[in-house]
């Protein structure tokens, strides 16, 4: 039953595979970025759920509370989320400029245009 009890890891793995599959299989650059976002989010879940301590309170100093969840993974993931946002913004900016330069955001069409020139 332990394998079911660790359901958070099942969710993480499922999301991770969904995201990676989207990145690989979709031709649309924006959809690729969405897949990348899902993939990264899966890793965020992994960290956050790892930091949870059973019966632990939110890690804010309160009187009468002994057990806190581990705040470190949350802090790490806050940083990783910011990195993810920056990546997404840069990716979208590139997509806009690609659209302006090529008139398309489809990977196969871009490849064909590159090969032609």
């Amino acid at each position, binding site marked *: 039953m332990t394998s079911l009890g660790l359901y958070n890891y099942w969710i993480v793995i499922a999301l991770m595979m969904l995201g990676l599959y989207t990145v690989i299989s979709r031709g649309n650059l924006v959809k*690729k970025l969405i897949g*990348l976002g899902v993939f990264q989010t899966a890793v965020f879940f992994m960290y956050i759920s790892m930091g949870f301590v059973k019966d632990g309170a939110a890690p804010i100093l309160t009187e009468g509370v002994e057990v806190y969840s581990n705040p470190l993974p949350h802090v790490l993931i806050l940083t990783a989320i910011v990195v993810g946002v920056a990546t997404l913004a*840069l990716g979208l900016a590139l997509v806009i400029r*690609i659209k302006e330069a090529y008139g398309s955001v489809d990977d196969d069409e871009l490849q064909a245009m590159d090969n032609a*020139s």
Partner: protein
Amino acid sequence: MDAHFQALIVVLPLLAAPLAALLRGRTGPWLLATLVSWAMLGLALALLLKVQAEGTLSYALGGWAAPIGIEYRLDALNAFVQVLLALVAAVVLPFMHLSAAQEIDEERLPGLYAAVLLLLAGLTGITATGDAFNVFVFLEISSLATYTLIALGQDRRALTSAFRYLIMGTIGATFFLIGVGLLYGMTGTLNMADLGERLPAVADTRTVHTAVAFLVVGVCLKLALFPLHLWLPNAYTYAPSAVSALLAATSTKVAVYVLIRFLYTVFGVEFSFGELPLTSILVVLAMLGMLIASAVAIGQQEVKRLLAYSSVAQVGYMVLGIALATTAGLTAALLHLFNHALMKSALFLALGCIAFRMGGTRVEHFKGIGRSMPWTSAAFVAGGLSLIGVPLTVGFISKWYLVLAAIGQGWWWLVVVILISSLMAVVYIWRLVEVAYFETPAERDRHHEAPLSLLLPTWLLVALNFWLGIDTRLTVGVAESAARALTGGGS
């Protein structure tokens, strides 16, 4: 004050980046970036001397002692890589002034220099820190700066190659993040030295094995190990000339450093190469990379792409040295890391001179430059000789040590592979030399030598290629002491 050098070398470019973005015009931001890179070179040299005199240095960021706080930890290995980074930056940035002003719109120049400074901050940050998560953060800082820099290229294909690199690079960095997370889950620490101490107790779990797999694949994506190299040729080809030189000499090298750091310091030699089959996997991939990438390089018409494929092959040599897991092998890998950066940056800068005068870097642009641009083409040939590994150049030194390491293991077939790959380098460099010196340009030649501010940095690197190829005490000494410390003194 010198106690803070370890932090300053990262903080300086990090803070100069927003300043450079605020400045206007073409000279202000460039001057700031150049001065910062020279200051970094001074700091890096001072730190290297200090590490050699006093041993490992530790700096507690924010005053929080390790392993709770973030520790900046400097030993011979990262001090060596920092000197390399600062040296290449300090030479390439003076070159960038004219080269970038020609290739990039003036309004984008402050952004260019801000991105270069961020790239430097990220790369030195990776080498400075002793914290595994911090490595990820700096890795992403440098990668984001790299995507921006590539997208500044003139050709519209620069945009698509930047985008593809963004996807690949983010997947690589996220794999790295997964690995670090799993290690943290097993040990409860992120400090790399602390991880190295705590890991043996839990090394035989599937979690740690998975973490190794994710980390190694993630880092290998970044260092462009065959067959994870597909992003690299386009990225180097379409980036602005000076940026190609900077990237080729620094970013893959820092990824190689991360691989060494994790395999040797965090996982330990016995675990990485004794218990896990990493030696055979890495050796096979490295050899395939050396042979296939060199073969592909021979057929290229665009010289930047040719050099990019040759970089993939050269990364193979470094990984080969790492995978041997002996002091001699690691010494060879570190030497090649340093020396390859010197020769590739010299070659890319010579290409930058050619692009500046001829307006392109395809093979046909090489026609007759032996006569019209004698200094530039001589620099290119000298860099090419170093790439092939002719004696008296740095290329010879590192290949010699690699061959010695291979013989030390009794792997004669490896020596054969190294020689074949070097012969292929002769073929692709000779092809260019032939065009440059023995073909006459189609039209009557109006082109003349590149300006002095481009030639000086190029020739400085060429001179270093020969000087460090003849006087090997500095590089070999540092590389050997770093390798000995990492492999635990023995074997």
